[in-house]
Every structure is written in C-alpha cells, then in structure tokens.
C-alpha cells in the first residue's frame, strides 16, 4: 500500500524547478502531487508522478540529484475537521507524521493527501486497524 515519491534536490538557482518540470514533461510524465520543502540555501521538490521509474531515470540522466521514498496516500473527508480527525487517530497511536501535501486530483469525493511517516510500516498497520482508507498504487495510476 506504499506509494513511491520522488525527491529532487534543488539548488537555489533560477529556473531549476522549471527544468525539473520540463524534463518530466518531455518524457510525457504526469505530476500528480507536488510540494517544495525549503531550507536556507536549497530546496527539495517532492512529487508523486504516474511513472516513477522512468521519471527518476530521466532526472538522473539530466544530472539531477533525485531519490525515491515510500509514502502513503490517504483519503481525507473533504469537510471541516476531516484532517483533524485522521491526525487525532494517528496521534492516539503515537504515529508520527513527518510531512504531508495534497494530490491534484481526488480519488473519490474525499480529498487525497500524501503522508510521509517516520515508521511507514507501523503507520500502515494502525491505519488498517482504524479503518482509514489507504489508496493503493493502482488507484493512483488511474487518477
């Protein structure tokens, strides 16, 4: 139930993010979710794409520093308190969220969010027990 995310190191140079998107675009890869984590002098672009093996290959060919990470895609009630509810559940089980961001498309009429956990396997177990819907690779591919 893990989804693969690509992280790309972005030097604080003008046009670097555009180049990443351009490289992916040329390879006809579709970005489904994207966020940028910034630090003082560099950034890290995190994204979920439709073909991550091709994406990382072509990024590395173009000289980018890129890496794959396991994340989990969760459905969140698209109403006020929806996210708080899921986070409460995770909190109660002492599951730690490192970061999260949103998908472009919805899977159903619920919101779809990317979660990065410090202990992915334990998180998946807890989510299963608590009946929180985890969206699998196939469904992401079909977005």
């Amino acid at each position, binding site marked *: 139930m893990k989804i693969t*995310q690509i*992280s790309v190191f972005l*030097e604080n140079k003008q046009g670097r993010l555009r180049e990443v998107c351009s490289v992916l675009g040329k390879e006809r890869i579709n970005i489904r979710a994207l966020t940028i*984590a910034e630090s003082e*002098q560099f950034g890290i672009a995190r994204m979920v794409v439709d073909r991550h093996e091709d994406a990382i290959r072509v990024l590395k060919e173009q*000289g980018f*520093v890129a*890496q794959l990470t396991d994340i989990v895609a969760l459905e969140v009630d698209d109403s006020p308190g929806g996210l708080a509810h899921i986070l409460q559940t995770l909190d109660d089980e002492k599951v730690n969220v490192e970061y999260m961001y949103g998908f472009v498309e919805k899977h159903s009429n619920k919101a779809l969010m990317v979660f990065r956990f410090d202990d992915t396997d334990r998180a998946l177990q807890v989510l299963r027990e608590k009946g929180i819907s985890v969206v699998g690779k196939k469904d992401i591919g079909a977005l």
Partner: protein
Amino acid sequence: MDCVFWDKKTELMPRQDLERLQLERLRSTVGSALRTEWYRKRLPKVGISKPDDIRSLDDIRRIPFTMKDDLRQGYPYGLLAVDLSDVVRMHASSGTTGIPTVIFHTYQDLMGWADVVARSIVATGATKQDVFQNMMSYGLFTGGLGLHYGAERVGMMVIPVGGGNTKRQVQLMKDFRSTVLHITPSYLLHLYEKLGECEAKVEDLFLKKAYLGAEPYSENTRTKLEELFSIDVYNSYGLSEMNGPGVAFECVHKCGMHLWEDVYFVEIINPETGERVPDGAIGEVVLSNVTRSATPILRYRTRDLAFLYPEPCACGRTHRRLSRITGRSDDMLIINGANVFPSQIEEVVMRIPEVGTNYQICLEKDGALDKLIVKVEIYSKMFHGSVHELDALKKRIKDELRSSITIGAHIELHEPGSLPSFEGKGKRVIDKRIRL
C-alpha cells in the same frame, strides 16, 4: 616632533655597532639551533657545525631557508632547543594543513618579546598614562597576548577584552576612556558602522591611537580611519614564528614600520631565486630571530611581500623601516585577521563522505567584515530526500571547518557538476573582496 625612546641606546645604535651585535647574536642563535633535531640535521650539511663557523653576516646565506611546512614537519618538538621544563608558554598558528606551527618560549623569551613590544608602543608616543583596549584575540593566537605584555610593561592600564561583542567594546571605551586600541582594520571600520546601534558617537569616546595589524590595508584606509575617528593609526607587523606583533612597528612619523634589527635579522629576497634584492625593491621578507632560546628559527620565509626603505627615518632610529605588506608569495588567505590556507579547507572537504571532491572557496565583504563561503557538491548516493539531513550535513561541515581554521564559514550545497572542476591546481578561490 619630539621622539620618545624606550631603549634609546639600541634604537639609535650606529649601523656598524648594530651589525656587530647582530653577528654576535646570530652566532649564539646558531648554537641554539644546533641543539634542535631539525637544524642539527641541516646545518652541518652546509658546513655549519658550531657558532664560529659563522664568520660574517654574509655567512647566513649558507643556511637553507626554513619554510612553514618545515615547522609542520618538525611538529611538535623538532625545533625545540631547550628542556621542556624551561618552556613557560607555547603559541600555535595555522599550518597549511590541520597541523599547526608551534613556537615555544622560555621566560626570558617572553620578557624579550614584551620588551620589543614596549619599545614599539613607546615609539608611537603612547605612555603609561594611556588606557589600552586590546581587541585582538587572546589564546594561541599571538596578537592578544603579544601586545598585552608589552603594554603592561610600559605601565598603561590594559583592558584585555579580546575580539567581538561590539556593544560591550564601545561601552568599555566610554566607561574606561580607552585611548589606544589594538584591532584589525576591518573590525575598526565595522565598529564605526555600529556606533549608532551602540548609542555612541565618536565625540563620546576618548580615542587617540589605534594599532592595526593582522591583515593588509592601504594608506587610503588608514587615512579614512584617522578621519572617521580623529585618531592616529599606526601599522604593526608580526608573525607567530617571530613571536607575534612587535617585529616591526610605525613610529610617530607613520612612514613605514621600524623593524627591530637587534632582535630580527631581515633579508628581502626574490621569491623565485632566493637571492637578496636591494633596499627599496619589493621581495619576500625572510626573518631570523636572534634573541630567542627555546625556538630558534633561521631564515624563515614569511611569504609576505614588502620592501625596506633605504633612507633613514626622521626620528633618527637606525633600524630600517619595512613597507606595508603588498601581497603574499603563496596562496594563504587572511579572513578577518585570521590566516587560512585553502589546503586546510580542502583537507576538511575531502574527508566528508557526503560531498564530492569539487569545492570552491568564495570570499566577499559583508559590510566591513569578510565573509567566507565554502561551496561543495552533494553526492547523489548520499541524498535521501530529507531537508533535516542536509541541514545537519551543512552544520557538520561548518563545525569541522571551524575546528581546523578557527573561523566560521557559510556552507552552500550544490548539485554535482555545477561547480567548476579543474585538472591539477585549479582556481578554487574566488576573492571578490575590495582591498581595504
């Protein structure tokens, strides 16, 4: 202008007598040197096995030059000429690699150093009535303690504050009416810019003189500082291998620094050929300390470029004047008064596994102060997508660098292949600083 002398007899000694004194002291120093592991191996090879083998001052030319690397190779006790039990202090300064150069001092050596510094201070017209704020670093660096002992010897009140904490520095100047400062030129400029923040104006202070050293600066900068603060600025030259400050110092005429030739034998050489150049010509300063007992050093190549004024000074002192240092004959950098060799930075970068072997050293000005930026390339394999990890890496590099070069650096992480790479010795240092 009335000149005051600390040691009139020595300072006005006729050249003939001075040279005779030098020869006597040089012989004695050769004797000390032969007691060290280092010189014992080298001097007999050039026919010097006892002090009497030095028959004239010209014979010094037979002695091979001593380089900073030699001091590194001799680390730690290779150049010690006395029993360790007679050593009361050691000072260390930057080596070209992580290994520093060490100078040992006996009690007499320290007294001799204090004396030559006192002589320098009095030559600027300062007296025991002055209040001396010593804003150079104390510690293994010789700038702080060097002037400290000399100023105490003159009898003035010394405020041993060291560097940094500008607000406190200004408060001390106001409260204790400091009249003489010992400081780097960039820090003095920086101080002027910060006076407003410290709620002070130049008129609130009692400054009369500043002794500037540790980094090069121009006549223009001296004039500018004299105008900004309404003080007299005196140039000071020294290096830890030759004790520290007190090697050469300007007198009230402020036209070149009197190099104390009864204590230091000076030669100006062509850095390529090693041959002496005449007075007035720029060359590399080579110094032999002829009064020390613990760490005798002969014909030390300082890598500083300067010239000796051929004409005598109006003050009457017979010790020749050394010009401003015009440059270096090596790649050593001076950053906020600290000596840094690019090779020290390279050594640190090479042993960090997460970054590649390509790096760049960039120097810029940040107001009046220097800013050091070290750019490195991250290894693709070492990237795990975590911001925290990369920030921690930057901090680690910064800490390792500080351990080696003692000053702070800004670290920039770059993508592999984005920094220029070179075959062999490349241009790794980009120095954008405007010369002071």
